């Protein structure tokens, strides 16, 4: 029997294809989708099939999880706001199928006001932590909501390892900037790269997690693979996706949506039924999959854990 043992100098077949050729193929497939030829092509090979995704075997359950009915995997992975891939709800699931490019390791830089800055490869970054399942409500600023079984670990645990100093008042997060992989960045819809931020106590709150998966599997591109933030008591856009940089800063970060329209989107953006978006009411929300609207809850129902962070603050002013 012939068993092929790969020598260290022997490149695997997958590495042989020139990156540019590979890219062009992908581009052709994408064009095929946009001109409506997709149905004529076999759909296999377009996206990474869901059953090829990495599965998380052991997951810690969490006291913070809700018992509410979960939104379907299909809805969670096809109804997305991820402007880096286009502004329609469908665009991310159509154009993030090859994201992130696996030929390059994903790196996250942790820097700023801390003692242990560094650049970490994804695997090294995630390895020390026990993965938990956190079933959270997610409320979009547009007036719809979902219940998503995230997989991740508390952001605070990672931040503590970096040892922030006394000047670290805020944490700033940055999404990857790569118009080649993220076609939505080729137009200036927002000031790329996407930047989000939290006050340090919000970042350390046990509800705040870095997520690497959902429904027991690793994240898909459209959901912010490979690593994203989840802050369940704030509007969805605060939960920044595909993070490449985490920085401790002294001044309040100038975040993407505040930059785009500071009269409509504030730094805090806590879910609050009593403070309307200037153009629409925030009193109610449509849970995806439901017909009737339901009342939006203060802090998205997480007030017991987070209300004290804002005691004494005028939430109408600091929206």
């Amino acid at each position: 029997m012939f068993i092929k043992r790969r020598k260290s100098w022997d490149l695997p077949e997958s590495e042989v294809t020139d990156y540019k050729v590979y890219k062009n193929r992908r581009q052709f497939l994408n064009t095929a989708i946009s001109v409506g030829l997709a149905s004529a092509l076999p759909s296999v090979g377009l996206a990474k099939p869901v059953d090829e995704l990495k599965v998380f075997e052991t997951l810690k359950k969490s006291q913070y999880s809700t018992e509410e009915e979960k939104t379907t995997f299909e809805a969670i992975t096809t109804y997305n706001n991820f402007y880096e891939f286009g502004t329609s709800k469908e665009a991310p699931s159509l154009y993030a199928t090859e994201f992130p490019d696996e030929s390059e390791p994903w790196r996250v830089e942790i820097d700023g006001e801390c003692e242990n800055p560094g650049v970490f490869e994804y695997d090294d970054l995630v390895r020390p932590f026990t993965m938990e399942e956190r079933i959270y409500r997610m409320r979009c600023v547009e007036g719809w909501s979902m219940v998503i079984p995230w997989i991740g670990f508390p952001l605070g645990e990672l931040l503590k390892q970096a040892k922030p100093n006394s000047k670290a008042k805020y944490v700033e997060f940055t999404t990857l900037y790569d118009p080649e992989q993220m076609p939505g960045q080729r137009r200036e819809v927002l000031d790329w790269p996407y930047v989000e931020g939290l006050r340090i106590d919000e970042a350390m709150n046990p509800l705040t997690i870095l997520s690497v998966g959902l429904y027991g599997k690793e994240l898909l591109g459209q959901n912010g693979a490979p690593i994203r933030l989840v802050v369940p008591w704030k509007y969805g856009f605060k939960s920044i996706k595909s993070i490449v940089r985490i920085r401790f800063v002294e001044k309040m970060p100038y975040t993407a949506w505040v930059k785009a329209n500071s009269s409509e989107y504030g730094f805090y953006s806590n879910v609050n039924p009593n403070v309307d978006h200037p153009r629409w009411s925030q009193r109610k929300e449509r849970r995806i999959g439901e017909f009737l609207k339901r009342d939006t809850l203060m802090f998205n129902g997480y007030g017991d854990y987070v209300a004290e962070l804002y005691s004494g603050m005028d939430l109408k002013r600091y929206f």
Partner: protein
Amino acid sequence: MLLNSIQAWTSSVISNKDPNSLIRTSHLKVVLFLVCLYPFFFMLWGFFTHQLGANPIDTVTRLSGLWALRFLLITLCVTPLRWLTGLNQLVRFRRMLGLFAFFYATVHMLLYLGLDQFFDWSEIWRDIVKRPFITVGFINFVALLPLVVTSTNKMVKRLGSRRWKKLHRLTYFVAAAACVHFLMLVKADIREPVIYIFILSGLLGVRLLHAGRQKQLNRQ
């Protein structure tokens, strides 16, 4: 030359008066009617076969609004097309197109009232007063009503064609306000509404040019 022959051909083929003509306007009207209903059935079909994505109510609300705007613009194409081609018969289809704009606007409005607000009138009133984009949408719907009421032949006669024409210039306002309504609900990507604004500016610009030229001709 070409235009003239097309005109001659169409007027011989499409005619209401000539019993020998192959196609009558009434036949074409039936075809057009069905074509105009297509987006409506598309929405119904998609809604009940779960093909409109994860938030179907939002999708149908947007689609119906979009089609109301599109039909407004299509209606405004009729007159410039007539000038361009000399096919005066086109005007016979204008009323139906305009009424379809109203039809889709009504569907849009009912979806908002019913499936967005569940007929909670106090909440609806608050929305109309407080939210400029809802205010514009509501004014727009109300502005369509006199146009619909005066769309019958009888009403045209009663008003006199001069006054009728003057009243129906309201369509320009409604189309412009519909574009603004669209622009106002967009979060960051204004591409789509801007396309419609361009088309509308073109349609209104052509009218200005035409009016200018008529004035010149009259002076000579």
